[in-house]
């Protein structure tokens, strides 16, 4: 069943964009080889929290962060940590598919080239990653065509393949299906379920039903606070907090 060792744990994580206090004393575990869903109304800080886990918020000027994000034993915000190293261990897939204007093959090999992986191994890793993202059969005959020749859903799976090529421990997905049609969405949901044996998944979603379908754990955020965290089944049947209950029943959001 579910493995209880936490992969990421935040400790009193606070974040400000300028004067805007966006994350307030957030404590959340992300369990190893599980799917954790992050839900909550628009603007509550889901994306911001997700972007704390691979330090993407570092790019936004006037950002201040206190507290810890422990990736296993290591606080990824400690000064000794190499950010690029964190980002290879913690992959990310964005809301809108954002393939590079390069060939399908080069999209997947990009991270490998950057990390200086031996040429002889790259081809094999690219193929495996495309397999793992369920894209191989569709693209094996057109690897050197532009990534833009793919459909939106295929592009998003390419982005997943690109992240998988780095052999990450965790993949962060920020509303990965919100720009996709229902069929492509279903495929990506199934893919998430298949991938969780191999990699820990943290997914932000606006779609409560989606969280119910694919996640083992759910975290509900409201106005920058982590209101409730628990097993998805439990939370969806008997939410502990009034606000969670209201959100799940569609009162706001």
């Amino acid at each position, binding site marked *: 069943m579910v493995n209880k060792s936490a992969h990421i744990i935040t400790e009193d994580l606070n974040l400000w964009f300028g004067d805007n206090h966006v994350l307030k004393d957030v404590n959340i575990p992300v369990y190893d080889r599980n799917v954790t869903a992050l839900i909550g109304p628009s603007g509550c800080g889901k994306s911001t929290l997700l972007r704390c886990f*691979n330090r*993407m918020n570092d*790019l936004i*000027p006037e950002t201040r962060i206190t507290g810890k994000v422990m990736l296993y034993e290591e606080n990824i915000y400690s000064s000794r940590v190499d950010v*690029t*190293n964190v*980002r*290879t261990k913690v*992959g*990310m897939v*964005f809301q*809108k598919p*954002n*393939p*590079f*204007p*390069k060939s399908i093959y080069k999209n997947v090999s*990009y*991270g490998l*080239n*950057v*990390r200086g992986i031996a040429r002889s191994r790259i081809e094999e890793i690219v193929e495996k990653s495309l397999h793992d993202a369920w894209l191989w059969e569709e693209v094996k005959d057109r690897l050197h065509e532009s990534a833009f020749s793919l459909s939106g859903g295929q592009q998003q799976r390419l*982005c997943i393949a*690109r*992240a998988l090529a*780095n052999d990450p421990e965790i993949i962060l997905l920020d509303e990965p299906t919100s720009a996709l049609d229902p069929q492509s969405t279903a495929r990506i949901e199934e893919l998430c379920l298949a991938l969780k044996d191999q990699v820990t998944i943290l997914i932000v979603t606006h779609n409560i039903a989606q969280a119910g379908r694919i996640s083992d754990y759910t975290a509900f955020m409201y106005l920058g606070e982590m209101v409730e965290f628990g097993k998805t089944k439990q939370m969806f049947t008997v939410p502990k907090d009034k606000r969670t209950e209201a959100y799940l029943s569609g009162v706001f959001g």
Partner: protein
Amino acid sequence: MNNFKELSFKTVTYIASLFTIVVLLGIIFSIFLGGTPVFQYVSLTKFLSSPSWHPTHDPPDFGILSLIIGSLLVTAGALVISIPLGLGSAIYISEIASQRVREILKPIIELLAGIPSVVYGLFGMAFLSPFLIRIFKIPTGLNIFSASIILGLMVVPIISSLSEDALSSVPKSLREASLALGANKWETIIRIVVPAAKAGIISSIILGFGRAVGETMVVLMVAGGAAQIPSNIFQPVRPMPATIAAEMGETVIGSPHFYALYGIAIILFVITFISILITEFIVMRKKR
């Protein structure tokens, strides 16, 4: 009423654009009208391939090879200087500088584009040339080298601001994707941002080329003016625009020399026209 407004607006803008096209065609037509008679005196092949330009000798020599070579050499030299400076500053402004530094640097570079070319020429004659004579112990400071430097400085703002536009319009999502895959800032710039802006950067270089080839005042003042095929970069040359500008005032309208100068104008026009076509082609291909 509204319909009338719309219609009159349409008509006015239509006439304005039609007028521009008519003027342009008129200019092209007049260059060719003025230039083609020269081929009664010299064949096109000889015109292009002979290096001796002695328009006032008897009989005159109308070979413009040395002028073409002069133009191409100073233009190439200008690009050698302006590409690294222009592209480098574009990358710095677009990718590295803070908001504040960017707000200071951008207008400065645009200001550089607003300086009249005669001022650049003066700077070349009054400062650069004596300086080069002292440093390199050469007989003249007005030569390929100095003209390339001055032309290069003139072209920097063109390459810089157009490349900067191209770099800045690369979507943020691509940079984020690259960084999220563990690439650092430099890898992201070199491997993702610059290639994604390639079409715009190449267009900016071709536009810079066109500007340098056609620039008249600077080469007239700084290139030295000798119609010869140079053997090193410290020798003076006589680029095509400088030849036209220097000699047009001394010729008799309707003389062979007069036609020959127009002939040079045709060649210049063809070169810049082709460079603009290439740019359009690149932009069009990128849009598809």
